[in-house]
């Protein structure tokens, strides 16, 4: 895919994502019914849960690209993993900031060391270390391989985060959408949540593509530098 194509795709996805964002904000503030027990503050759910979904999606991409990178050694997979990791880190930060704002009103505390919160914070630190490891060695290939391992290990945490509320006693609410007996949300709430998830997913994919294109251009610049320093001999003229 050419850079121009990547940019156009990113722009299209971003526009669709922004339109959905306007729609879901309108739904959140004008349409969706107020939750009975938590009241107004439950509306944070429509930004907290989609951010968590996108963070999981992003780290899933990191793990997949990292695993295939370790197998095949293709540089573009490492670029894709890095771009996804940045997005995942941003969205996990959103989860970790919006959660306490909700928890302070709903639970009476900003933070508690219960399993889901602790594992999410651990995920954030794992991906922070992903970026630190990338710059840790002088040999870029080596640091990319180390980072790929960290990316795979970090993604193993994702299923644990999801099932932690089922396995352990937890303050965090049980899943309301991904359940064996179907979603337990009011239809308007579910509709709003799905719109927000769609918006965040499209915005993430758009920014992921742009970030990937930056990495690709950076690699092209590095290749040009190498070419200038060590020019490859041209084709030998025929006799």
């Amino acid at each position, binding site marked *: 895919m050419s*850079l*121009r194509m990547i*940019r*156009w795709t990113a*722009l299209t996805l971003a*526009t669709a994502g922004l*339109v959905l964002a*306007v*729609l879901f*904000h*309108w739904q959140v503030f*004008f*349409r*969706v*019914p*107020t939750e009975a027990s938590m*009241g*107004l*503050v439950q*509306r*944070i759910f429509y*930004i*907290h849960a989609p*951010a968590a979904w996108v963070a999981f999606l992003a780290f899933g991409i990191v793990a997949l690209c990292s695993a295939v990178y370790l197998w095949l050694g293709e540089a573009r997979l490492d670029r894709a993993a890095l771009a996804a990791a*940045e*997005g995942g880190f*941003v969205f996990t*930060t*959103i989860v970790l*900031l*919006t959660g306490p*704002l*909700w928890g*302070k*009103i709903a639970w009476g505390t900003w933070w508690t060391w219960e399993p889901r919160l602790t594992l999410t914070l651990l995920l954030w630190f794992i991906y922070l270390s992903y970026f630190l490891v990338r710059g840790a060695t002088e040999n870029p290939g080596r640091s990319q391989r180390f980072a790929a391992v960290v990316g795979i290990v970090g993604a193993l945490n994702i299923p644990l985060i999801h099932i932690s509320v089922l396995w352990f006693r937890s303050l965090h609410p049980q899943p309301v959408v991904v359940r064996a007996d179907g979603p337990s949300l009011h239809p*308007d709430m579910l509709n709003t949540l799905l719109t927000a998830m769609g918006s965040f997913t499209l*915005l993430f994919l758009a*920014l992921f593509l*742009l*970030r990937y*294109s*930056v990495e690709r*251009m*950076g690699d*092209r*610049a590095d290749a*040009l*530098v190498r070419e*200038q320093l060590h020019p490859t001999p041209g084709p030998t003229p025929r006799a």
Partner: protein
Amino acid sequence: MLRSYPRWKPVTLLVLLALLLLFPASDLVAQSGPSRAYPLRDYGHVFLAYALAWLLLLGWVVRIVRQMARVEARLTAMEEEAGIGV
């Protein structure tokens, strides 16, 4: 080729936003049941959560745009240098 940015159509976007915002919401608001007064702190937390989320996303956008500008400037300089050399 690197400088071929797609052009925004601000008027199109504004019309789209206006249509979405002008969509009659009053009937739907009435469906959500009787209104209840909530402490000002609840509004503050909701506002802050949404503001922080969008600020972080905006921060990522700014970072990407700055990186893109830096790499493009580097590539352009190298291409110009190579052109002068030829």
